[in-house]
């Protein structure tokens, strides 16, 4: 980038900021732009966070990015922004001038999203320096304990890092035990309390019973690990594994934190990208109107913008679909195309030219920006009409003799909507809980998959269990289901390695599943239930 270009870019950025604050009424953390050569840009894209740790997977992703770049020969407006304070964004120095502007305006959109969306409220804004320090530490671990050992731990950490959200309560096991004890006690006592007015003899009996119950409950709770099923698998393993070294705990803590950093980004992909597109289009249009950019720039912008918003016949482009939904919201709330008045209106002609002149579209968008995640966003704003406008279809694979054909189905917009919402639910991380850290009294780790109509991928699950077994040092059991009617099944994976007492076995436990065990364990024989089931 030449010096004059840079001067011009700085001037335009000033105006951009004005438009962002005044015309769009948005705010964000300050943004720092870093201009980098393509090779660096590709590295940043592969590493997600520029200072991220070294790992073979990052190398693989880098190769993928590089190949893609080589084949596309530039063209694509690469953009990376890191959710930090100040936010960090990267501009690739080989981009055309208009593309730099597009990327900057786009980054402003993301920054506003990061700043205001409630799912990012707990994000760590010091991620860059934290990861830098971590990468240095991990490097020293590699020198001391060997690359293979470190990579094994890192791979295992990566496998589990999305199983904890930044909103998970940070309670220790003891605090949790106490909380549950109080809760259960209260429940039992309030049940007992209803009988307080019966005869004195009985009251003594009840008190005695309750005391006994308290003792039993506490004894039971003391033996329970975890006290209550937890979906924060890494947290539980870090705190309770007997084979982990301190350096391994450090690695897992960092990866868990990294997972929590990604968590809201994954949850809001369509919203976030869509909003950034809307912001960059609004800002860029304003800039063109003010003649701050040339007609040549306009052509470059249109070309790149079209690439960003390209239709994908085999998938949904979050930039296109997200932005279309935001524009739809703006339009509907501008014209008042919502609420009971509009939906109950039977006159097609009225509906056709409905306009209340509310002009509340953009403020509605800003409200939605704060409160929604992709799932809620789709649920609320993906209307069947919009699906038709966006030309979204569902296709299915059909066996056509020699080939497999992908054919568009006859689904109606409503059916497509249901399928999409279903798919959005499926794309989430399966709900898996640690239910028992001392399964079969042998110190095995029992996990349970909260089956909700969608199966786990068996091969992936078993490979992941190998990772867990490595961290746990003892066999791991996972309970799940294969379909609605079938019984619970369990898989068992044992850790491998010479120093472990057991060899690797993959077997299906015929006994009761882990989940079943847990439910049974919780059934404390309450004295209350026997005492008060009297026939009076």
């Amino acid at each position, binding site marked *: 980038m030449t010096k004059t270009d*840079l001067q011009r*870019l700085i001037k335009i*950025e000033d105006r951009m900021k004005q438009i962002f604050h005044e015309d769009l009424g948005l705010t964000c953390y*300050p943004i*720092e*732009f870093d*201009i980098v050569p393509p*090779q*660096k840009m590709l*590295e*940043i894209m592969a*590493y997600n966070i*520029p*200072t991220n740790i070294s*790992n*073979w*997977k990052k*190398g693989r992703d*880098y*190769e993928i990015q590089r190949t893609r770049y080589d084949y596309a020969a530039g063209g694509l407006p690469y953009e990376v922004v890191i959710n930090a304070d100040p936010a960090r964004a990267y501009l690739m120095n080989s981009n055309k001038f208009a593309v730099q502007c597009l990327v900057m305006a786009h980054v402003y959109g993301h920054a506003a999203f990061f700043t205001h969306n409630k799912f990012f409220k707990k994000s760590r804004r010091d991620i860059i320096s934290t990861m*830098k320090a971590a990468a240095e530490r991990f490097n020293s671990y590699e020198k001391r304990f060997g*690359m293979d050992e470190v990579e094994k731990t890192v791979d295992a950490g990566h496998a589990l890092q*999305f*199983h904890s959200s930044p909103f998970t309560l940070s309670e220790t096991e003891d605090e949790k035990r106490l909380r549950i004890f109080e809760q259960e006690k209260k429940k039992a006592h309030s049940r007992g309390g209803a009988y307080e007015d019966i005869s004195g003899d009985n009251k003594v009996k009840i008190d005695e019973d309750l005391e006994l119950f308290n003792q039993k409950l506490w004894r039971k709770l003391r033996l329970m690990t975890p006290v209550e099923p937890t979906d924060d698998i890494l947290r539980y393993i870090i705190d309770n594994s007997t084979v982990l070294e301190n350096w391994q705990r450090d690695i897992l803590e960092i990866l868990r934190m990294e997972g929590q950093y990604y968590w809201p980004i994954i949850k809001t992909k369509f919203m976030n990208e869509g909003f950034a597109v809307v912001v960059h289009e609004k800002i860029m249009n304003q800039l063109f109107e003010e003649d701050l950019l040339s007609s040549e720039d306009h052509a470059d912008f249109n070309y790149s913008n079209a690439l960003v918003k390209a239709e*994908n*016949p*085999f*998938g*949904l*482009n979050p930039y296109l679909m997200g932005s279309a939904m935001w524009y739809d919201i703006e339009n509907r709330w501008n014209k008042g195309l919502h609420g009971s008045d509009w939906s109950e209106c039977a006159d097609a002609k009225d509906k056709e030219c409905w306009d209340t002149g509310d002009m509340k579209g953009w403020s509605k968008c800003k409200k939605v920006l704060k409160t929604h995640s992709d799932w809620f966003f789709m649920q609320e704003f993906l209307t069947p009409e919009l699906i038709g406008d966006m*030309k*979204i*279809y*569902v*296709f299915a*694979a*059909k066996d056509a003799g*020699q*080939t*497999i*054909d*992908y054919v*568009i189905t006859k689904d109606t917009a409503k059916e*497509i909507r249901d*399928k999409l919402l279903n*798919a959005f639910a*499926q794309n989430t*991380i*399966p709900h898996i809980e640690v239910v028992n850290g001392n399964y079969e009294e042998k110190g095995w780790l029992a996990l349970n998959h909260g089956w909700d109509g*969608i*199966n*786990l*991928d*068996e*091969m*992936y*699950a078993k490979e*992941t269990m*190998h990772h867990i077994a490595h961290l746990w040092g003892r066999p791991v059991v996972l309970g799940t289901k294969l*379909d609605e009617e079938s019984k619970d099944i369990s898989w068992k994976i044992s850790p491998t390695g010479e120093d472990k007492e057991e060899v690797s076995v993959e077997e299906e436990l015929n006994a009761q599943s882990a989940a079943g065990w847990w439910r049974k364990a919780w059934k404390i024989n309450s004295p209350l239930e026997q005492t008060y089931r009297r026939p009076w």
Partner: protein
Amino acid sequence: MTIINHPDWDLSERGKKDAERHRKKIDEAIRKNVRDVISEESIITRKKGKTVRVPVKGLKDYRFIHGKNEKSQGKDQGEGGGEGAGQGQGQPGDVIGRKSKKAGDGKGEGKAGNQPGEDFLETEVDIDYLIEIMFEDLGLPWIEDKIKASMLVPNGWKFETISKRGILPRIHQKRTMLEAIKRNELYAKEIEDETGCDHDDALKALTQAKGDINKAIKIVNTGVIDLALDPYVIIEDDDMRYKQIEQDYELHSNAVVIAMMDTSGSMTTDKKYLCRSLLFWLNEFLKKVYDFVDIRFITHTTEAKLVDEDTFFYKGESGGTYCWTAIDKALHLIDTEYPVEEWNIYCIYVSDGDDFNGDKTIKYIEELLKRRISMFAYTEVDPGRDISGGKDQKGVFGLLWSSSNTLIRKIKSKWSFVCKSEEGTEFCKNSDKHFLISVITDKTHVYPTLKHILFKEDK
């Protein structure tokens, strides 16, 4: 606008370094999955080229993910799993894409369905590299010194010839010095002849003139010789001699591999594939490791033919089966082109053992073994043969052969073998006769069989 160059992003090419780590992982995975890689059909049927695509297991980001509900298929859509959403122009019923089905892998081995193909990462690997990592420490056994050694085998480098040109590190000091002394003496003689001084003075004058003969003559004539000077040899560019580096060869005994294959009608696609798989890797290995080994190819039905490599690997035939014809052809080849006194002969024969005239074949094998060839290896392919069976009267290892009445059974009752069970099949060896037999019932047996044939002798 804040434009900052952040120092926390260093210039070292981290991506490339980590990409190297990834490559190492791929190598490891290939090593671990040699058995699967080697039986990969696409490698053998590939178009000519040096690289092959190899599926690698275990290089994915494994985490808990949702899969397909196999049993609930057909409930709502019919094509469970093959569904997706897309965007763009298109009416219901339009075909938006087409994918050709992968070449079906025949029967679908017992374990199929467990691990779908898409869970493998495909990577491009050089075929020589594959051979390197798969056939470490393997080689042709029982090589003997024959009378006429004519196979040149490269054996490192040597310095033998000496030339006037070369590079400084390879200077031949002794020869250079010798040349210099020779020339100095010649010059001295010339000075003596010109001026009539004595030999010592001539040398001194030459040293004083720093090797310039005309100057030296002048010095002698003017009589300003420095008599205190100790004469030394002056080296000129022309005296320089350099060592020349060249390939060193060793003379080895000749070796020829005669690969024989049954292409008769009873050889189904599965069997042929196992056959070719085995011989393909053998051929590739020999070509890479033993540059000068002759490889000859024989196919047979009811008569045997000498064919070239291409025909051998890529063309099929059908007809009846006379195994003895192949052995006969090999015998003929040995008699006419490869006398046993001069050649180490390795005969490798693959068939399904379904022979019309087994007794005759046994006689021919006997004849072949009598020639004292280096090895006769017979491998029977029979995909799906039940290898769990009873013991025969002789002992523990009769089980493989008792199930069907094939050639290998006849061989087994004729000669005695030392057998070992491995990888779900059996390998038998008769070290006196240099006779190896084995059975391949599954594609995972190809690699152990190769190891069985190309074993290293204990010395």
